[in-house]
């Protein structure tokens, strides 16, 4: 048991290191540099560029910069943002909560949407399933900002129910969370519905029904467990997707958050910030896959013996 845990942690560490190195390499290989952003609309001469490079330590060989970076990372030092001129840890720290809040609420929404739709429509009349499934697929395929703008146009600009922007109160969270949750809820609902229908075809379902169990109770108490396993496997990936979709949602809704920080940092080659965000995302992935493994045990008693 202990060995298994250690192995898990060890592979987690390798994932983190690989993520940090891959991100570093990608930024290195991409054309252009940080100095362009710092120069901005201002004057631009070789002297200025050399000066900035020297101040940031960008004039050192790439290998030295990489080693230096890893070394400081080991000590929990993420460095200072080249562009924003503040410690990376402060930037991430101030931006992480709005994003976490957004993804948590969006996750809750998407679970409610997915389970609700799947339970209500699994094994029902063909036209109903077709209709709901069609809507789900449309939402899944629509670009994120389109959903965002539509939600805003209707519920904010026209009806005035929710404010357009910012991380203010609960009401400001509804639309962005919904914009994130709809496509994910759509995918999950498709997966769960299929699982449900497969479970309902199993002999145990017939047996349960013959015991006099109502249809809803059967779905809710027995079939859903079967259907949730693939959904949980998928959920880890989907939450990763959510972090990247948050980039667009945060932009459209004018919310603070890691997504916006990450995009700006990538386009301005603010390496310390990009690397910190990548590390964070990798850590979240590692944690989620662990949680998913635990969730399997909870959902499926058959897995507990092993």
């Amino acid at each position, binding site marked *: 048991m202990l060995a298994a845990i250690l192995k898990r942690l060890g592979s987690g560490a390798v994932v983190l290191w690989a993520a940090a190195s891959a991100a570093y390499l990608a930024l290195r290989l991409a*054309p252009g540099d940080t100095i362009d952003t710092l120069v*901005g609309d201002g*004057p631009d001469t070789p002297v200025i560029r050399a000066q900035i490079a020297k101040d940031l330590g960008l004039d050192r060989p790439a290998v030295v910069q990489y080693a230096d970076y890893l070394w400081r990372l080991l000590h929990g030092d993420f460095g200072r943002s080249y562009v924003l001129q503040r410690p990376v840890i402060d930037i991430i720290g101030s931006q992480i909560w709005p994003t976490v809040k957004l993804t948590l609420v969006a996750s809750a929404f998407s679970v409610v949407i997915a389970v609700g739709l799947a339970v209500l429509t699994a094994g029902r009349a063909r036209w109903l399933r077709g209709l709901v499934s069609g809507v789900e697929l449309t939402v899944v395929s629509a670009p994120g900002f389109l959903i965002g703008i539509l939600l805003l*146009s209707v519920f904010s600009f026209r009806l005035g129910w929710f404010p357009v922007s910012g991380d203010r109160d609960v009401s400001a969270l509804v639309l962005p969370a919904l914009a994130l949750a709809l496509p994910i809820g759509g995918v999950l609902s498709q997966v769960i519905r299929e699982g449900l229908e497969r479970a309902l075809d199993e002999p145990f379902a017939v047996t349960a029904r013959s015991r006099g169990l109502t249809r809803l109770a059967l779905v809710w108490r027995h079939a859903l467990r079967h259907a949730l396993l693939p959904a949980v496997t998928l959920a880890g990936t989907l939450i990763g997707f959510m972090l990247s979709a948050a980039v667009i949602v*945060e*932009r459209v809704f*004018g919310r603070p958050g890691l997504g916006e920080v990450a995009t700006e940092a990538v386009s301005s*080659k603010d390496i310390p910030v990009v690397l910190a965000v990548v590390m964070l995302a990798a850590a979240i992935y590692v944690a989620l896959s662990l949680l998913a493994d635990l969730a399997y045990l909870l959902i499926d008693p058959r897995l507990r013996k092993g």
Partner: protein
Amino acid sequence: MRKHLATLALVGLLLSGCAGSAAEPDADAGAPVQGGSLTWAVETEPITFNPHQYAQAKARLLVWNSFEALLTHDDKGGYLPWLAKSWDVSADGLTYTFKLREGVTFHDGEKFDAAAVKANLDQLLVSGYAPGVASTQLKNYQDAKVVDAGTIEVHLKKPDVLILDFFASPQGAQVSPKSLKSPDLKAGGPDVVGTGPFILDRYTKGQEVHYKKNPAYQWAPENAGHQGPAYLDEITYRFLKESSVRIGALTSGQVDVVEGVPATEQELVKGDPNLTFSKQLNSGTAYSYYFNQTRAPFDDLRVRKAFRDAVDVDALLQGVYRGTATRAWSIVSPSSQFYDATLEKTYGNNPANANKLLDEAGWATKDAEGFRTKDGKRLTARIFLSAPFVRDKRDILAQAVQAAVKQSAGIDLQVKVVDQGTATDALNKGDFEVFDNSRADTDAGAALTLILPKGAPINRHGFTSPEIDEQVAQAQATQDTAKRKELYLKLQQTVVADNATLLPLYAPQDQIAAQKKVGGLKFEPTAGVPGSAYNVWIGK
């Protein structure tokens, strides 16, 4: 993608039904009212709140809320006293003496005096702090001497009239000497303070910045609209980067003012009876295509002229910007005092001449696709647009130019919208035939010193001549504005008319749209960008 977004928002907004038309600002705001709080949606979130580090023209409207400079621009190309009561220039143009206003305090209680001005100048020269300022605006700066608390002498290495432009620029704004020691100095924020009418007290990255009134404020420049403290108690600038979201927030009354109204949404805003709309041309240089004359095909004057004659700029602007853009004819923006209006209508939209010139230049044959060729090579030109910096639909405009030069003269203009790194790479290696540029300098002369002389940072077109270098240097050294104008007119004739170095397209502008109840919205004189919130009020 962006296009869809705009269209959708447009549809969404049209649903809400509007009639009538937007009025001029102030018409319905009534007399100035004290108090209230205002929300202003802006397009750009500043990278830094430290004015010394200022590098984004779109962030300028925030700077003057909490910071102030020694001088400010008037609307005639001159300067007005601000934190300086008066200034004198020695006959040799090497010493500038500023008499400072008394009784001015920074937000942290520090006194504003000659020592503070000197501390700011010293800080700007600290290695690595503001290299851009040190090597251009303060290029000719020698040192500063505190004569007494109210007087400071600035010595130059050689005469440079643009030093006054520096003392009126955000980079020349006065930061509290105490703040200069803050660990967050470069990033700015609540700990880095100035003397302005508002105090920055809250900044939420990615969302908004909040200012509250400075009740002690008594030192507005004479063109500020009024004297004493600001009208508003507080103002929040929200960062809404998507223009359709900004406009939606305005039309639904969730924000009071927006900055940045793209052409596609201007009709909508102007048609809304509850809104006001105003716009102003920026200072500096026009948005132009510069030809790289260090390589074929634009090393040939005839090809450069042919390219210009192949384009009907007015028709393109009408098509892309629906009549909201102002045509440019010179390298200098038409709003500048140095603009050469005689260049208007002297070239362009003459396909017959374009074809004649290209025939003469040897591009006489055409290939299967209808493009001109010479020695089997196609007449191709590439322009690189850096995607993160594409604004004002410049990518669409480039495609319109592409279609125009193909149709009327058989030129193959290839528009490459690429990431910033790739664009910079191409520019650095000189691996392009056309580059686009516009600059928002308050003094158009400052922009020309960066674009025209040999070896200047933006001299990527490769046109140099000793006369140009001489004229640019003279114009920077002379204090006689009439003489400067004469020199800049000469330069424009050489560059635009004789050498055909560039194809000027349009004069960049800024727009403000607001609820009718908001009064006192102004554009900054000379710069032409939205002004600070000092004179803004919310009417009843």
